[in-house]
Each structure stands twice: as C-alpha cells, then as structure tokens.
C-alpha cells in the first residue's frame, strides 16, 4: 500500500486580483520507504506540495490519503496529532528555538506530545549519541556550527519516530562538506525504512534519490518512476 496517495490536488492562492494555481490537478503516489527528490524552478509549486504533504496547508480540491487515511478532512487538532506522530520536518534554515539548548530543541516534539520527562531524557540522550552531538547537548543554537544545527534539527525530526521526513532544501545553508554529511544522515534514516522526501534545487543532491520528481507550473513534468527507459 502506498504511504502517500494524492489525487486531483488543487491549491490556488490569491495574489492581488489574480489567482495563482500553485498546484494544478496533481496525482501522486509515494510508497513507504521511498527516497524521493522534488525538483523544479522557483514557483513551480514544490514548496506548496511539501507544505500539503506535511499538513501545514490544505488543498482547495482533491484528496490526500496518508497511510490509507484521508487526512484532508481531519480537524486542525487531528492534523496536529498526525504531524506530531507521523511526520518530521527538516528546514533549510534549521528553525531551532534560539533560547533552548540542543537537547531541549530535540526534546521539543516529545514535550509538545506530552511524553513523560524520564522517557524524553532517555530518548534525547540516545539521539545525541546517534547524531554525534553528545558534547553539544547544553549548547544554544548560536553556539553551534551550521552542520551541528542541522543535525540537531534532524534529531528533532526523527525523535518521534515518524513514518515520513520532509526536508526543504536541507543543505541550502550549508557548505559542500557539511551538506554531504547531512545528506548521508538523511539517507541513513531512509535506509532504516523512513520515507524521505527532499525538496532541492541541487541536481547533484536530486540525482542521489531513488525517484526524481520535476515540477513546473503546479504540475508534475517528469517522474522518474514512470519515465520511459
């Protein structure tokens, strides 16, 4: 069964007097455990797609089934629960809370989900070890390098053991070397069975994925899964 099934997804924005079709009759299936790169020029709708997949935005038409369940009709509270339990986000600019330490940032999703402090502590300790952040646990984000920050962000995205990780230009703010490290981390997660969807401008990064989607004007222009040859 497909993890993600999109059918007839439309998303329109009103910009002044004109309506922009950010997504235009999009149909897409992504299986569990896939590694998908979404590429395309600016304004092609790839960020809008990512927001919809992450339940941060709602489509104007069409249906979105996540793990066989129609999530477009859920209430905001139910969607929050799905985000909390099933989806992890990695952002281009990390989005760490500046006043919290690395450990606290990693624990944030568990705190929001109401998990007991003892269990949080144990899982954070494990995550810090897994991501090589042991010595940075008590550092604030501004005391961390870019690569360390993104590692904290990835640790945070995985701490709730989601089925799906959505990464929006995860290497966009990093140099080549640290960018590669972060990509290896994400790919390692994917190899453990987590579905990974990466939005990127970088063709080299896109080429590493098992499946490439190229978007243009709110439509899928190319899907390597259905490409001839």
């Amino acid at each position, binding site marked *: 069964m497909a993890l993600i099934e999109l059918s007839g997804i439309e998303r329109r924005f009103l910009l002044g007097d004109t309506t922009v079709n950010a997504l235009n009759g999009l149909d897409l299936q992504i299986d569990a455990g896939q590694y998908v790169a979404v590429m395309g020029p600016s304004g092609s709708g790839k960020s809008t797609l990512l*927001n919809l997949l*992450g339940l*941060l*935005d709602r489509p104007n038409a069409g249906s979105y089934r996540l793990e066989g369940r129609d999530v477009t009709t859920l209430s*905001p*509270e139910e969607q*929050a*629960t799905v*985000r*909390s*339990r099933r989806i992890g*986000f990695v*952002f281009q*600019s990390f*989005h760490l*809370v*500046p*006043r*919290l330490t690395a450990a606290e940032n990693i624990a*944030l*999703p568990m*705190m*929001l*989900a*109401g998990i007991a*402090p003892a269990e949080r502590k144990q899982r954070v300790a494990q995550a810090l070890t897994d991501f090589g952040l042991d010595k940075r646990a008590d550092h604030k984000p501004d005391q961390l390098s870019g690569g360390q920050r993104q590692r904290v962000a990835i640790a*945070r995205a995985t701490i*709730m053991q989601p089925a799906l990780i959505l990464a929006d230009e995860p290497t966009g703010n990093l140099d080549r070397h640290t960018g590669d490290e972060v990509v290896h981390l994400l790919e390692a997660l994917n190899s453990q069975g987590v579905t990974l969807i990466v939005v990127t401008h970088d063709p080299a990064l896109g080429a590493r994925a098992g499946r490439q989607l190229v978007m243009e004007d709110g439509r899928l222009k190319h899907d390597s899964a259905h490409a001839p040859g």
Partner: protein
Amino acid sequence: MRLADTLRFARDAAAGYPVRTALSVLAMSIGVAAVVILTALGDGARRYVVGQFSSLGTNLVIVLPGRSGTGGFNPANAITSTPRDLTIDDAASLRRLPSVRRVAPLAVGTSEIAHGGKLREAMVAGSTAEFIPIRNFELAQGSPLPDEDWNRGSSVAIIGAKLRQEIFGTEPAVGQLVRVGDRRLRVIGVLKPLGQGLGMNTDELVIVPVSLAQAMFNSNTLFRILIEANSREAIPAARTQSLELLKQRHRGEEDVTVITQDAVLATFDKLLGALTLAVAGIAAISLAVAGILVMNVMLVAVTQRTGEIGLLKALGASADTIRLAFLAEAAMLSGIGALLGYLLGQLGAFALRQAFPVFPAYPPDWAVIAGLSTALATGLLFGVMPARQAARLEPVLALMKH
C-alpha cells in the same frame, strides 16, 4: 503538553525577552502596589479616627451646649435666641437618671503652671472625681480628685506625665504646691502617659475641681458634660433621657446637643470606609491599565514569535497547546507583577508606619485580595486575545516568517 512543561516553556519564553517582561511586570506591580498603599492610607485614616474616638471612653454620651442638630426651624429658637448655658447643676441633675452610671462635667481653658521658677502653658480641665474613670485615664501616682460637693472646689490638681517631667524632673511631684494661673494648688496625683487623645494631649493636662476651674476662668458654664451609660444597650436611653431632662431644666427649650460616641464612630467609620473604597477604585484603574499593557506586550510577542508558533505547529503542537502556553505566559507576567506589587505595597505601608508611628497604615485584607485577584484576572483576560490570535495562526504562513 504537560502542565509543568507548559509552565516551564512560558517561563523560558518570558525570560527570553527580559526588557518587555520586566516592563510589564513593573506596570502590574505598580498597579497592585498603588492599591495596597492607597487602601493602607485610607484604612489607616479610618482606624486612626476610630481609635481616637474609642480612646475617649466606653459607652460615652456627650452633651454640648447649643443646638447644632439639623431639625429644621424651631419656633422656640425664634423667640428666645440665646441658648442657655450648661451648668454644674445641669450635670449634677443627670446623675439621677436610671440609665446613667457616671457623669463628669467639663470646663476647659488654658493657663500657666509654675513651680520652682519653671513656668509653662498648660490646658486646664475642670472636672470631678468621675472624670478619670469615664475617660479611661489611669493615675501613675497619688490619688484622684476628692469626691466632694461639685460646687466646692478644693485647691488640688492632677497633672499629666509630661508636665510632671518638665516641671519636677526627677523630684517627687505629689504633695508639692504649684501655681496655676493665680491659684496655689497642691498636686495630689500624676496621670499615666497616654499620648494624644482627640486634640487634647493628656500628658500636658492639668485636672482641677470643676468649680475651681470656673472660678479661675471667671465663668459658670461648662464646655461638655460627659456621661457614661450603664451598658452599651443603655446608650440610646441615656441619650434621650438626658436630652429630655435638660430640655425640662431649660424651660422646654432643646438648646443642647447630645451625641453618642457610637453614632460618631459609625459615621466616621462609614465615611472613611467609603473613602478607602473610592481610593481603591482609583488605584484599580492603574491595574486595568497594567492589564492592557500586558495584552499589548503579549500581542507584540505573538508577532515577534510568529515563526516560532509556526514551528511549534509543524512539530505537532495543537491550537490548545499554543493558546495555553501564551495564556500561561500572560498569567505569569501578571502573577509575578502582582506578587512583586504586593511586596512593594507592604513595604510602602511599612515605611509609612515607620514615618508616622501613630498612623496605623495597614492595608485591609479585602483590598489585598481584591488587588491581587484583579491583577490576575486582568492579566488573564487581556491574555486571552493574544493567545487566541497565536493559536489561530496558519502554520504555513507562520513558518514563512521565520
């Protein structure tokens, strides 16, 4: 999110913006401190006046010459306009009333008291043996005024503690002769120090027999007649009976005013209580202003932290969680402000009491409770709108502001 986590999160968020947090806490604390100090002043004034009146004596009924009631036009006044004075015989006649325990006439004037080359001005109160028990005075040394015919004043005096100190120093005073005006009087007693009592400083008082005082001041009228009723319940009866009797003695003319201590007390109590309430109301306005400031600060916080709210939503925070976190922050700001204001207010009241020891500037409990709960209520009330606004933010729009 767990409650402890919500509170810690709100605390850290507030601590993340120290200046705006400090300012709103300050505003709230000034509001609460104003309520505490102003009500302490108002209630202090009430206690002070009530205390002064209570110290006059117990179950007291006071007769004043002249009619000062607001009974409207009295035809009798139109014919005989000069009121009759109160006399010693008037006072003596009141002793026969069944509801009356003690009666003390009072004639007052100022004179000089001198002894051994030392001379000073003093207030002279002419009265009888009953005066000291009626006014709840106590003797430190010596004996009370002789229980004699009220119209026959012996040449004796009782002096206040401060006068004794100033004129006799360390020498014994009782038994000495002093000159008061043009009379030579023997000191037979010294009052215990008491301090101020409604404009009459008893420590600088000279008490002499009433007829002697009248002779010294060359008058045969009385300043007051003090009556002690048998009991608290007997006060109204004592008042009406003495008024009736004096009216008879004055040929049917009601030319005296009889006031009871209770009535005066109740009036002042009510008046100053209302004043305290009014002052508290004014101070409460500053609390409302502080509440609005907290709201403003929280609204700014929502704008400042839009990106963070978006992130929290992306990480799975529900609208309820966000709302609670912001409400907790507003409650914390106003709560800490209220607590700080309470301490400030108590400190202010304490300083007032240190500066004016006779003035019991204690904030009343109701004002403290009302002040604190108003602060918390306004903080929460004005916190609701920013919290709702934060909770309603669309996650995708909020994230873009990061």
